[in-house]
């Protein structure tokens, strides 16, 4: 019954897939660095655009670069 309910949820699984958890862990690692720097240099915490640039670089740029280097 429980399994059926999980399967029938129109929004998909109620628990994150392993892949989702890995992505989340990656963002948590990015966040740890951002938080550490932000506590020491609070100006970093004040700009949304700094956060966007950082997330794009750390959350997408670095993994994309690593993937590309691995393929070579």
């Amino acid at each position, binding site marked *: 019954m429980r399994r059926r309910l999980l399967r029938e949820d129109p929004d*998909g699984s109620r628990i994150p897939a392993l892949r989702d958890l890995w*992505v*989340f862990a990656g963002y948590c690692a*990015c*966040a740890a660095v951002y938080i550490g720097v932000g506590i020491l240099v*609070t100006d970093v915490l004040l700009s949304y655009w700094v*956060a*966007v640039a950082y*997330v794009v670089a750390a959350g*997408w740029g670095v993994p994309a670069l690593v993937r590309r280097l691995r393929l070579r």
Partner: protein
Amino acid sequence: MSWAAHDLEPYAFQRHLRLKVAFVPLLLGSYAPDMMSKWFVYGIHLGPWDLKAHDPVQFHRGWPGVGFTHSLTYGVVIGLIIWKVFGSRLWGVSFLVGEWAHALTDTGDTVGTMLFFPWTHHFHIGAWAYAGQAGRLTDAAAYFSGFGGMWDAVWIAYGLFSWRVITRRYFDEVICEADAFWPWAARYVPRGALLAVYRAAFFYGTSRWIAWTLWAHVYHHYPYDLTWGGPHWVHAAHP
């Protein structure tokens, strides 16, 4: 004022309101009331000049001032302009939802907002102290020591409970489908980078909530004061 709620509300709203909304104008609406005014409330240094509002509270939330940006009326007017200029009702309504969320959330502090401007009555619940006039750092310390910070924590928990809104699948199937902006942007920017941009406000709101909390209570030792209208160690402004 709220420090992280405005970053996180759009994610929760778009999922739980079950409305078709466009994320970019929703986020824009959520940031809009403070976009032009916050820097002048806290003040900035530009070379030899110090630019700061003479009366930050009046400027930020009052009239005369730019307090009208925190009204429901402002959301309606700008939403209508967006609808007419961009020809998109979806963008107009999405902006409206974001702006209303901001205006309503900010009624939680001791100054409140003029929700029905041009009626200049301030609606305020007074749950946490408004301390913008004390400067950015004192304001942050006060906010994260009272109910304001707790209110943000509710949004973080709500956002994490709605974890599916930040998955790639949701971004592809809901966010990109709802708004032509994302497919257009994908012509110039890799989809993975766009996904990171979409997640950025969630990241920003959650990370800076943690960072400011640690800064206020571990790095410095500001006392918590979870009483109504607190913290009372800071001078709370009133309308």
